[in-house]
């Protein structure tokens, strides 16, 4: 039996339906992006979250410097710059900045640990000592910030669960599940 040639014809798409779908997708994308941007802006304003974010960035920077410090001679540059940052911090704070990557470590420990470099031909990653001490101080800040972050994200879910029927009904008025 000969196959019908119509079986191999491409399906004719409806431009109106395609146009509506494209618009719906753009609207969803816009809503999602705006939601993300606004949500993150609000969350980062929280002092505990901001503190944890700073601690996390500081940890990453210190770990990077510690690895670099293991390189003899050349690796000393970031390590010494980090130590110098402890001395310039007081002036940086005047303009609202901070140059101290290890605020919980004293200048004496920071500079003193550099003395160990002399015994190892500058191969010893002395900055790892400051990094370890700072991470120990930052750990509870990171945990506190994450818990606060979770709280902020949970507020909307708590509101939703408390008013689920009316919210779902309201959403259904505007979003047709079958159409998507």
């Amino acid at each position, binding site marked *: 039996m000969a196959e019908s040639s119509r079986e191999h014809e491409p399906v004719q798409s409806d431009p109106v339906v395609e146009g509506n779908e494209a618009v719906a997708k753009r609207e969803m994308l816009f809503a999602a992006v705006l939601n993300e941007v606004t949500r993150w802006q609000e969350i980062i304003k929280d002092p505990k979250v901001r503190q944890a974010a700073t601690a996390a960035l500081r940890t990453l920077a210190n770990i990077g410097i510690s690895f670099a410090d293991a390189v003899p001679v050349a690796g000393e540059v970031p390590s010494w710059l980090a130590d110098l940052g402890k001395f310039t911090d007081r002036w940086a704070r005047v303009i609202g900045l901070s140059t101290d990557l290890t605020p919980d470590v004293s200048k004496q420990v920071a500079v003193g640990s550099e003395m160990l470099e002399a015994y190892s031909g500058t191969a010893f990653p002395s900055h790892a000592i400051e990094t370890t001490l700072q991470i120990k101080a930052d750990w509870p800040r990171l945990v506190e910030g994450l818990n606060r972050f979770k709280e902020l*994200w949970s507020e909307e879910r708590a509101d939703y669960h408390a008013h689920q029927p009316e919210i779902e009904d309201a959403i259904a008025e*505007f979003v047709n599940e079958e159409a998507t």
Partner: protein
Amino acid sequence: MDKKEALRILIKHSFLLDKQTKEALNAKIDTLTAADIMAIGKFLAVEKKQSLEQGTKVIVAINLLLKQLGR
């Protein structure tokens, strides 16, 4: 539930809009056209769905991170 009432509910439970914006929108609802109500309502409805889905994923990720941090 009509669309105006649905819009009021979505505005009330929106975490995207601040208090001032919510009050301003609520004051204008009765003067909005059906097309405007549909556009704003659809946006808030889609945003709410996206936000709840995203929130679930974020909380799961944070719980995992906290578990790895030992807390």
